[in-house]
Structure formats: structure tokens, C-alpha cells
């Protein structure tokens, strides 16, 4: 029996390697480039690949911690509002006379504070679902942004601040470098540390984690704090790109970010997914919208395409998992599974 089990595992290993969700994403990614280069003769050059990402990378910073949140089986819909609040506070503080470097730090601090607040409430009241807590704080943070700035815009930042969104080191945009560094850090944190293993564990079974001595509350708070911090970083880059800010910036970012994470193969029921998938999804959606923009297809059609892509990808994922599960299951438990469905 044991031997058979090992054999099963082995065959599963190479199969898993080739039937990974990420491969499909890679194919979609390449396909998009092929289609794009057919659509427009100006598409296929090095500049496209180096310079385009800075037009869509701002929200990608939130995708990284959101991957953690969703692997944990939680959800956070307050990130868009956090971006708005930290951006508004930064602009207001700068206009009130705070030096810009301190204003930037304040921006990150406000983002982290928002995340921390979410995390503490989630940890203190585990009975409440993360969805309702973050819906409430989403309304609250956006509301505070409106209280501060009412219906005005704030801007007038110093010249050097635009470097964050537009500047580049050599030929590579600063934003791309910053994102690459963050992505590597988050990847290592998720896949190479015991903290990352705890995140996966909590996605599978929160209670078992708690009983085996994992400080679940602490992990929830840290992940929320990171989410807030990255929302603050997004606010820095977004504001730099736009040059001014309003209380209604980053409206709907939360759902876009969640869509990217899910498209990247992270299951919302928790415990499944890798950091690589959401990263690919960011670039797939980014280049897709860029390519469609080249041939003058409107942003509204893009909405339809992204929605359809999201649904079909998850459907394919489901069918694939069902099939592999059926093959894996010994006959007795296969029956049990059938009754479960």
C-alpha cells in the first residue's frame, strides 16, 4: 500500500509540473504578444517591454500582499480606499508645509496604519468574516479621504517627485526596478520562510494551525500590515504618475487586484497558489490592455475581455482539478467525493 502511494506521488509530481496553472498563463502571455504584434507593426520592439509596464504596474504592488491574503483564505476589499487615503493625506500634508520626503514617509505610515487597523480587528474578532470588516473599513477610509479633501484636488508636488512614476535608471523605469525588488522579496517570504508556510497552513486549516502553536493572530496582523504598506507604496507611485490627487482615486482597485490574483491561479478558498501566477497575470492584463489600446479598442471592451478571461480561466482550473482528483482518488473515497458534490 505504502509503495503504491509513493508511486502515485511520483507520477503526480511530473504531471503536476507540466499541468501547472502557470504554464497555461505563460502560453496566454506569449499568445497575447503574438496577437499584439500582428495587430500593430509598432508593437514588437524592446522599448515596449521595458517601458510599457510602468503604465500598469502601480496596482501590481498590491497584488503581491493580496496573494498572501487570498492564500490565507481571507479577502481585503479596502485596499483601493487605503491608496486614496494615504495619497490624500500625503498631498494635504505637503501642501500644509511638510517637506516632501517626510510626506512620503507619512504616506507609507498611513497605509500601514490602515492595514494594521484591519488586521487588529480581524485578529480580535475571528468570528467576523474579513469581507464585512474590510467593506466597512473601505467605506470608512474613503470617507476620511473625502472629509480631508472634500471635492478638491491637491497637487503641486516638487519636480523630483515625478521621478517615481516617470523616471528611469539607465533605460529601465524606476517603477519596474522597484516592483522587481518587491516581487523577489515577497516571493522569498512566501516560498522560502516558515512565515510563508504558516500562511499556506492557515489557508488549509486555521484551527489546526492555532492548535499546533502558530500565532495565527500575529500572522493575520503582519499580512494586513504588509497589505497596507504596499497600498501606501502604490499611492506614492500612482500620485507621482498623475501629478495630483483626489479622494476618488484608485476607485475599484480592490476588485481589479483580486481579479489578477485569482487569474494567477490562487484559489479563494485558500491554501493554493504561487506568487508566480499573479505576477504573470499582472503582465497578461497589462499587455492585453496596452495592445488593445494600440488598435483603438475601448477600455469598455477590455472590461468584457478581462471578465470573460477570469471566468473561463477559473472554469478550466475547476475542470482540471476535478479530473486530476478523480484519477487520484482510490475507489472507496471516490464514492465519498461523489456524494459530496
Amino acid at each position, binding site marked *: 500500500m505504502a509503495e503504491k502511494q509513493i508511486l502515485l506521488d511520483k507520477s503526480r509530481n511530473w504531471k503536476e509540473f507540466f499541468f501547472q496553472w502557470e504554464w497555461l498563463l505563460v502560453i496566454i502571455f506569449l499568445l497575447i504578444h503574438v496577437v499584439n504584434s500582428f495587430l500593430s507593426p509598432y508593437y514588437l520592439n524592446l522599448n515596449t517591454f521595458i517601458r510599457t509596464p510602468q503604465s500598469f504596474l502601480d496596482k501590481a504592488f498590491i497584488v503581491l500582499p493580496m496573494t498572501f491574503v487570498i492564500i490565507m483564505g481571507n479577502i481585503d476589499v479596502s485596499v483601493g480606499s487605503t491608496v486614496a487615503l494615504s495619497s490624500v493625506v500625503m498631498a494635504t500634508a505637503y501642501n500644509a508645509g511638510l517637506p516632501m520626503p517626510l510626506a512620503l514617509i507619512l504616506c507609507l505610515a498611513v497605509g500601514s496604519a490602515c492595514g494594521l487597523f484591519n488586521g487588529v480587528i480581524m485578529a480580535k474578532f475571528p468570528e467576523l*468574516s474579513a469581507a464585512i470588516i474590510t467593506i*466597512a473599513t473601505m467605506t*470608512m477610509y474613503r*470617507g476620511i479621504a*473625502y472629509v480631508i479633501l472634500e471635492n478638491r484636488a491637491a497637487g503641486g508636488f516638487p519636480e523630483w517627485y515625478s521621478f517615481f512614476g516617470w523616471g528611469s535608471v539607465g533605460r529601465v523605469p524606476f517603477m519596474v526596478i522597484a516592483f522587481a525588488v518587491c516581487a523577489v522579496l515577497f516571493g522569498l517570504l512566501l516560498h522560502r520562510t516558515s512565515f510563508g508556510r504558516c500562511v499556506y497552513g492557515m489557508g488549509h486549516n486555521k484551527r489546526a494551525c492555532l492548535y499546533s502553536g502558530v500565532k495565527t493572530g500575529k500572522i493575520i496582523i503582519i499580512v494586513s500590515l504588509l497589505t497596507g504598506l504596499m497600498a501606501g507604496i502604490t499611492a506614492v507611485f500612482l500620485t507621482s504618475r498623475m501629478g495630483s490627487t483626489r479622494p476618488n482615486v484608485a476607485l475599484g482597485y480592490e476588485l481589479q487586484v483580486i481579479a489578477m490574483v485569482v487569474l494567477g491561479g490562487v484559489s479563494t478558498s485558500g491554501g493554493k497558489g504561487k506568487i508566480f501566477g499573479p505576477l504573470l497575470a499582472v503582465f497578461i492584463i497589462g499587455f492585453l490592455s496596452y495592445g488593445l489600446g494600440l488598435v483603438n479598442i475601448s477600455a469598455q471592451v477590455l472590461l468584457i*475581455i478581462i471578465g470573460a478571461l477570469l471566468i473561463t480561466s477559473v*472554469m478550466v482550473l475547476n475542470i482540471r482539478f476535478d479530473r486530476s482528483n478523480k484519477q487520484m482518488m482510490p475507489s472507496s473515497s471516490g464514492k465519498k467525493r461523489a456524494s459530496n458534490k
Partner: protein
Amino acid sequence: MLNRIKRSFSGAESFRELGLLVFILILSVVIQIRNPAFLTASNISTLLTHASILSILAVGMMMVLLTQGIDLSIGSTIALSGMVSALTVAANPWVHPAAAILIGVGVGIAVGLVNGILVSRFNVLPIIATLGMMNVVRGLTYVVSGGRWVSAYQMPREFLRIATGRVFGINNLIIITIIIYVIFYYFINHTMTGRRIYAVGSNPEAADVSGIPKKRIICLVYVLMGALAGLAGVLWVARYASAQGDTATGYELQVIAAVVLGGVSLTGGSGKVSGIILGALLFGILSNALPLIGVSPFWQQMIQGIVILSAVIINVMVKRRNEYMALKRREI
């Protein structure tokens, strides 16, 4: 006698509703002291009219949440059904308002059916399926309208009267809401299908084993939600006399918040119609009364968020205390 009162209050469910009711009463008294115009017949009518669309959507969302689902696509569905019906009456002014409503409901049913099939047949998680549909339907709205608005002067007066007209001095919206609540109260509490929704939500496996057509029930719930969102779309356009591509963006979260405030659990299986009436009413009061007592409109959103958060937290604390007391009572 005392015992009976105690028993009827000890249940967490009724306690939550009672708490909400007390909260609404205190809020009303405070507002009434600040501004005596609050509890006048005309203002109450305005308030209820304002809360009616939210209340209609709340019933549908409650059923979806009961089955452990969620529907994020309703904001987009409102926009699409409103846009389609507005375009129809703008192009053909002879169309009867009832027909316009039917067109809107039809659009909503179509969206709901897609949601339902995705969730029940293809096992796509509800939050993903409806998130995807949210994008698709919002995009369709822009495509259908070509990015243009339909404004008040393009709509025939009969169409606008759907929301502004009165029967016996009561606004049509309120009447429609009451009719919907009566129908769905009966449906949810007194028909077999309605009770099966609860069964599927509280324990899907048990429901399946006992022969309840689980998939059909789940599909039905989304179709009903879609139909109500379609209806709400037409009412929305008639009330605000304008159909835009970005109508009701993000409204889904407000509806979910109202429903959860009303005591419906996001994990399925528990919640009552009476609870969501209170939840929707609280939202209506908040948005109607804050301007009356001189709160700047920019403060409203923040106050709304604080109220939702404190309501759910107080609720959890009360529940914990109840459970603690129950344990205490068992000690000798």
C-alpha cells in the same frame, strides 16, 4: 412570564434584531431633537423612497448569502438593465412603462442565469463568477450605450412616473417595495423552495443527501437576485431620470453591508427578512438624516463606515457575552 421574556431575548438572532431596533430608535430620537423636521410625514416618505431600491436588492442578496454565495455583479446589472430600458423608451416613446419594467427584469434574469449556471453547474466560486460578470456586464453597458447618457428629456413622462408617481398619496417605489417584501416574505418562510434555500445554505451535504435539488436551488437564487437587480435598474433610472454607464458602481458592497448589518451571515444559512428590513432602514436613515442635522455630505461615507463596523463588532461582543453567560448558568 419573566422567564418567557428572558427566553425570547436570549436567542442571539432576536437579540441582534432588538439591538438594531433600539439603535435605530435612539438614532431617530437624537436626530428628532436636533431637527424636528425629521419625523414628519413628508420626510418619512422621502426617507422610505430613498431606502426602497436598497431594500429591494437586499432581499435578493439575502437569499444569495443564505446559500453561502455572494453576488458582486448587481451594480453592473442595475446599470445594464436601466440602460437597456432607458434606450428602449427613448427610441420608442409609446412603450408602456410596465413593458419597460419587464424588459429590465428580463435583462436582469439573463445576467442572473449566467451567474447561476456558472456557480451551480461549473462550480466556479460565487465571488469569482460574479466578479467576472461584474466586469462583463459593466463593459456591455458601455457597449450598448456607446458611452452616451440617456437624459431626462429623452425619456417619456409615463416612464419617469414609475418612480415619481403616487398611489393613495404614497410613492410608487414604496408600494413596489412593500409588494416585493410581502411576496418574498411568504416565499422564503412559507414555501418549500424557500425553506430549501436555508437547508442548502446551512448544510449543503445534508441537503444533497436528503434529496434537495441543490444545484437548481442555487441557480434559482441567482436568477431571483438578477431579476430584482433588473427591476431596481429600471426604478433607479426612472427615479434619477438619467441612465449612465457608471450607474451604481460599487453599490453591491453597500447592499451587502446593509444585509449583513441586518443579521444575515456571510457563511450561509442564517438570516431573517425582518432583520434586513431594519438593516436597509438604518442605511436609509443615515443617508437621509445626516444632511438634516447639518452634517456635511463629505462626512457621510465615513460615518456610514463607522456605523457598519461598530454594529458588527458590538454584535459579536454581545454574542460572546451571551455564550459566556450560558456557560456560567450551566456551572453549579
